[in-house]
């Protein structure tokens, strides 16, 4: 169900992708299959208490200004994260996200929008309490940013340790952590980079492909662990996948040789009338430059998000049934738990597959740009 909802929204993503620089203007769309509630999860206690599974699920998947760990009774345990804002009129602001009191109050003329197009983001408010049209530039270390930092630190820690082992144990068989990652390193090098890019150039691109592969894999796996500091949905966040796709995009264009550009603007195997009065094929090829990384961005984001949404959906069944009748909730929990376990195992597989797919497609685009491999 979550997947269908996302599919109906895909055309709109294109708009979002291109209008990024001027700030997100596209209206907020909620996947059709998931009805967003009017009340936020955190501000729900004094308004209607009706269970809103879709709202809760989306709330778990999207980014936040603070890192919510758990709620015990009425007290929320969450880690405040730094908010960094730049207002065109008032300059830079630094403060902890705890100032917002989980979105209940505004601070220094900023608040977290509870509804409308900017819902969930920090907006600037006037003295009269009206939301200003322009959003401040938001450099806040959100939950996802923090999770990305954690995973990057982990990535650095793991691979610098492994590199040290390699230096120490040259000409010796791998051991410990080394033997855990070596098959994957060899897989990326010999099965992804070498055949896709070509014998001549693959060594130049292998470091990037390895970094991307292990970053995605690590984040996919961390996303499956529900305990802090893992559990943030990083690779299921469109900004994160967009950044990764941008790296691939830029490297591809920079690597592009004469052959690559000719294939785009003057493809040789195409009849002339498809090029001369109206450059139909070159136009399609040109759009293709952008759709390739765009699809990379969407595929990773959609797969990981959908997995989380469906897993949470199965889990939510307990509370949906429990809302009707506590016994039904207990009854369904067994089934629901089995489904969730099954889905988590499936997600484990998807974690590897998506890391592989992103990496091999990036490698293929580099190979195409270099024109060494047909």
């Amino acid at each position, binding site marked *: 169900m979550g997947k269908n909802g996302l599919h109906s929204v895909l055309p709109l993503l294109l708009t979002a992708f291109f209008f990024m620089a001027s700030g997100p203007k596209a209206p907020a769309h909620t996947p059709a299959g998931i009805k967003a509630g009017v009340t936020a999860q955190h501000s729900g206690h004094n308004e209607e208490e009706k269970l809103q599974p879709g709202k809760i699920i989306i709330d778990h998947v999207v980014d936040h200004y603070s890192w919510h760990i758990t709620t015990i009774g009425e007290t929320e345990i969450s880690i405040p994260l730094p908010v960094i804002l730049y207002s065109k009129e008032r300059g830079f602001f630094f403060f902890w996200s705890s100032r917002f009191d989980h979105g209940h109050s505004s601070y220094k003329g900023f608040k977290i929008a509870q509804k409308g197009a900017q819902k969930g983001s920090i907006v600037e408010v006037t003295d009269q309490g009206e939301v200003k049209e322009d959003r401040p530039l938001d450099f806040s270390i959100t939950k996802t940013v923090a999770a990305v930092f954690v995973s990057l630190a982990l990535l650095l820690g793991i691979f610098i340790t492994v*590199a040290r082992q390699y230096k120490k144990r040259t000409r010796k068989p791998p051991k410990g952590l080394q033997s855990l990652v070596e098959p994957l390193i060899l897989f990326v090098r010999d099965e992804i980079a070498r055949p896709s890019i070509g014998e001549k150039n693959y060594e130049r691109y292998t470091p990037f492909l390895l970094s991307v592969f292990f970053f995605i894999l690590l984040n996919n796996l961390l996303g499956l662990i529900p305990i802090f500091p893992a559990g943030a949905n990083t690779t299921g966040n469109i900004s994160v996948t967009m950044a990764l796709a941008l790296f691939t995009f830029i490297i591809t264009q920079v690597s592009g040789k004469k052959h690559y550009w000719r294939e785009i603007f003057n493809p040789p195997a195409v009849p002339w009338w498809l090029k001369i009065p109206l450059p139909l094929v070159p136009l399609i090829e040109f759009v293709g430059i952008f759709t390739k990384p765009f699809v990379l961005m969407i595929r990773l984001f959609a797969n990981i998000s959908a997995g989380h949404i469906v897993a949470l959906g199965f889990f939510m069944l307990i509370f949906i049934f429990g809302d009707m009748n506590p016994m039904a909730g207990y009854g369904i929990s067994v089934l629901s738990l089995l489904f969730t376990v099954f889905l988590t195992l499936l997600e484990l597989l998807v974690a590897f597959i998506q890391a592989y797919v992103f990496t091999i497609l990036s490698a293929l685009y580099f190979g195409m740009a270099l024109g060494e491999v047909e």
Partner: protein
Amino acid sequence: MELIRPDFGLLFWMLISFGIVLLILRRFAWGPILNALKTRERTIQERLDVARKAKKELAEIEFGNERIIALAKTERANMLKEAQQTKKQIIEEARQEARQEANKIMEDTNRKIEARKKEAEKEIRDQIAGLSVDIAEKVLKEKLSDDQKQKDYIRNLVNEITIN
């Protein structure tokens, strides 16, 4: 924050942090790791090559041994043959020498016999001459009456002696 709305701040941090990590990993992790893997692969390849070469050399050495053995065998056969020949030759020579020696001895003996014979003949002749004189004396002493008879008798005697 929305599900499908890219967020500027997040994108900003992601690009910067991932970019930095990319550079650090390339310099301090992937570089050494990939180099080490390459070195190891090259080492393995070299070792394999060396092993293959050693095997080949060993085979060659074994082949050489066989050749040497074969050579030695033919050598031995040749030597045996030669020895056989030498033996035969020596025997032949010895035989010939012996024969020659024997011949020489025989000849010597014959010559000596001849010389003795001659000596004996001479001696006999001398004795005959002496005996003849004695006989003549006796004849002269005893019966010198009939001349004819005496002459015949002497002749008979001499003939007898000569034959003897």
